[in-house]
């Protein structure tokens, strides 16, 4: 029951590391790869603070074993934008006060990113339904929903302008 080699592609970069199968993806990301955007919140698959994108799906990385993720492509909030070059979602969360303490925000933005890939033009109700796996204890959600709708509008306008 020793360690095994786990290969991960995180934000476009390939990593090969040794991990016990029982180690959780969130701990591998944070402690072995120093990718600390995804947060440890409830640890019981409820809060969504640890949300990352794995093979094109939003997953709670506290409920995925390192061994299960072997071979996976993972995107975290670090892969979406940088402090000098924010992703539209990050820009809109800033603009529309979509965060207060910021603890849930990396999970919110990573999940919202996948939601907008699947549904580029969501209604308010669809945003609320699609974000139901992420909990925020500060904002009351109203401004998070506003931020995501604003990001959708920006992304759609940019797409139209490019065509």
């Amino acid at each position: 029951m020793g360690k095994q080699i786990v290969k991960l592609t995180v934000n476009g970069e390939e990593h090969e590391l040794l991990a016990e199968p029982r180690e959780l993806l969130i701990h591998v990301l944070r402690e072995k790869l120093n990718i600390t955007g995804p947060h440890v919140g409830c640890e019981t698959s409820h809060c969504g603070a640890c949300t990352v994108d794995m093979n094109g799906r939003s997953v709670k990385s506290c409920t995925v074993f390192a061994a299960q993720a072997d071979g996976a492509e993972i995107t975290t909030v670090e892969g979406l934008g940088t402090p000098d070059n924010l992703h539209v979602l990050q820009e809109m969360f800033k603009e529309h006060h979509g965060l207060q303490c910021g603890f849930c925000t990396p999970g919110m933005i990573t999940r919202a990113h996948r939601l907008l890939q699947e549904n580029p033009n969501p209604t308010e109700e669809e945003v609320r339904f699609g974000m139901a796996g992420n909990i925020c204890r500060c904002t009351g959600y109203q401004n998070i929903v506003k931020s995501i709708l604003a990001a959708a509008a920006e992304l759609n306008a940019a797409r139209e302008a490019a065509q």
Partner: protein
Amino acid sequence: MIPSRFEYYRPDDIRGALAVLNEHGDDARVMAGGHSLIPMMKLRMAEVPHLIDLQGIAELRGIAIDGAEISIGAMTTQHDLIAHAGLADAAPILREAALQIADPQVRYMGTVGGNVANGDPGNDMPGLMQCLDARFELVGADGTREVAARDFYEAAYMTARDDEELLTRIRFTATGAGYAYEKQKRKIGDYATAACAALISRDGDRIGSASVAMTNLSDVPVWSQAAGDALVGSTGDAAAIKAATDAALADIDPTGDNRGPVEFKKHVAGIIISRAIARALSRA
């Protein structure tokens, strides 16, 4: 929260999974999406020295629709069920139920096979599969057999599946019946306080067939023959819905827990059953 140590296997075919199950017996367990099992392992309420991850087995995936005959691979996720256009046409009740399970992240990982095989009374798919009269395909070292969903559940976490068998596929015949899956839950991510699946078809101005099944109202899912019988032959008026609801309530045996005492659960069940029947009728 870290589970105790285990040996990890990712076989690429059913035979490989069965070999590990046979070798390690009670010490081995298969994992589909892991969203029931991993939390239990983290809480150390489940100890699994040999964990068999089924994600590499291609033959457990896929939805096949051949006329009215529908076959769904055990590793099909709730998200796959929701996104599949053909299935939404052929059996819309599946999509309606899957959308009420947990939250988006859990639906990307949680599978229909795990949901039906786990035997947790809180899972939504077992009651739904009883309503549809689905069959489960079980594969073991001695071969393949099918068990009806209505015969599969024995007690909480106890099913007709042998420890050394794998639930590989779910099959059922689609109907054009009016459908509804109604669920009352305290919050997103919670199991049902009460849930009910209904399929009802009309024959002229009378009800020709009716199937009613319930979730989390006993230690197993409950398909109520009496509720269906109360509807068939009636016009589906308020008196018939009341009679069917009373018949369904007579078939459940809820226990009090943090979702409420028995009286409350029966009250909620009555409302949910009536709503499911009325909505299925409105679509029949």
